[in-house]
């Protein structure tokens, strides 16, 4: 535990240069180094931000889920700050994934939006976590009751994902089938390398943003606590 605490203390030293180098490598790789796709053309380069954004979305929502369980279990408002921070970053990357997907869809499929299973379930996921952020935004950041309520909602939302995916798949099914996560990846090596670099860079960016947002939420909670203490002292 001590090692984790010490590593977390170094986040402002380690993460910014790593994220900067990663994003630079990603841009050079995606725009210059990766070969031009023969059929789809340059628009295919959006994949290097689209796929990693979707991955970062899962990472962030996973963090929200775990932190929400800890809010209910440990009764510690620090976990609420983590959950809120990760939720806002998750919603951001879900938005990235949706927008880059639509920009790619227009020249490739001929339309921006298709009611395809994967698109639809990602949109529902976006709405679930946007609702989570709204519910948390209308209540006081240091309100423990509201924190527990949001935690319950986040847990139900996360557990709902398999059901949403299943039902929407049965309802509709145009998204390109996964071509990386299988035993014989069908992507050329040069593209695969750029995609791996991009995924790493976006993961680091997501982690850095979650840490930033968490610290901001934490400061907000402490500020409210201090204000309440000042009020109590003035009354006394």
């Amino acid at each position, binding site marked *: 535990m001590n090692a984790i605490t010490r590593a977390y203390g170094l986040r402002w030293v380690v993460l910014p240069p790593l994220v900067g180098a990663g994003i630079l490598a990603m841009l050079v790789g995606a725009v210059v180094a990766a070969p031009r796709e023969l059929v789809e053309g340059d628009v295919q380069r959006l994949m290097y931000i689209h796929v990693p954004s979707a991955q970062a979305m899962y990472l962030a929502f996973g963090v929200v889920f775990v932190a929400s369980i800890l809010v209910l279990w440990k009764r510690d408002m620090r976990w609420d700050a983590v959950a809120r921070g990760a939720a806002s970053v998750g919603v951001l990357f879900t938005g990235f994934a949706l927008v880059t997907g639509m920009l790619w869809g227009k020249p490739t499929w001929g339309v921006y939006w298709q009611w395809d299973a994967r698109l639809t379930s990602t949109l529902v996921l976006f*709405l679930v976590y946007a609702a989570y952020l709204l519910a948390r935004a209308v209540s006081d950041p240091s309100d423990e009751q509201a924190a527990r*309520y949001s935690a*319950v909602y986040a847990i*139900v939302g996360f557990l709902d994902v398999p*059901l949403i995916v299943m*039902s929407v798949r049965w309802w509709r099914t145009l998204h390109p089938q996964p071509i990386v996560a299988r035993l014989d990846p069908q992507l050329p090596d040069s593209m695969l390398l750029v995609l791996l670099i991009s995924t790493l860079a976006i993961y680091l960016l997501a982690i850095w943003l979650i840490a930033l947002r968490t610290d901001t939420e934490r400061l907000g909670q402490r500020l409210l606590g201090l204000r309440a203490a000042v009020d109590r002292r003035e009354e006394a």
Partner: protein
Amino acid sequence: MNATLAVLAKDLRLAWRDRAGWLTAGAFAAISVLTYSFAFDLATTDVRPLLPGVLWTTFLFAGVFASGAGFQSEAEEGTFDALLLAPVSPTVVFVGKLLCNFIALVVIEFALLIAATILFDEPLLTPELVAIVMLGTAGYVSLTTLLGTLGSGPRIRAVLLPVMALPLLVPMLIAAVRATGESLGLFGGDAPWMLLLGVFAVWSALVAALLFPMAVER
């Protein structure tokens, strides 16, 4: 078990005394079906392709609305906090409230089915459709009761509850609409919609019963 029944009896009595809340939900459902009739011109066309969607959106909106409104007075009077002080498990209290909401919603839904049978000349009170409505209601009532009773403050109940509940209920809505369509003789696809409805009902009841005590423990 006795405690659950006591909570159920108390909530049903409250619902009966303060009829305004539930009557508003029922009136809302009736107006909604009427609005759909004008919007989609259900009077002249074949209603079967549209009817499942009309019925289930109405059920869902009325259900989400009612779970928030039905709890309003109890939250204002502070009886909910008092109830949690009772020497029984919070799950028992939750199940009582759940049953009350279920009964009240089923009453509204059946009134609506009878009205739709008359208005659209479509036999809706078939055993199959009754089973679908009960199963679908069991699916959404656990989550709306959970979110409706836990939400602190009128702002969450009045405005945010639909925004929060409806995305979670997407699987149940799709399954219920398709299953209803199939029972009206429409092609619903190859998927086992009744199974999905059943799985959703069991899943939501388990998740809600598990999370409620963790959320209200003081």
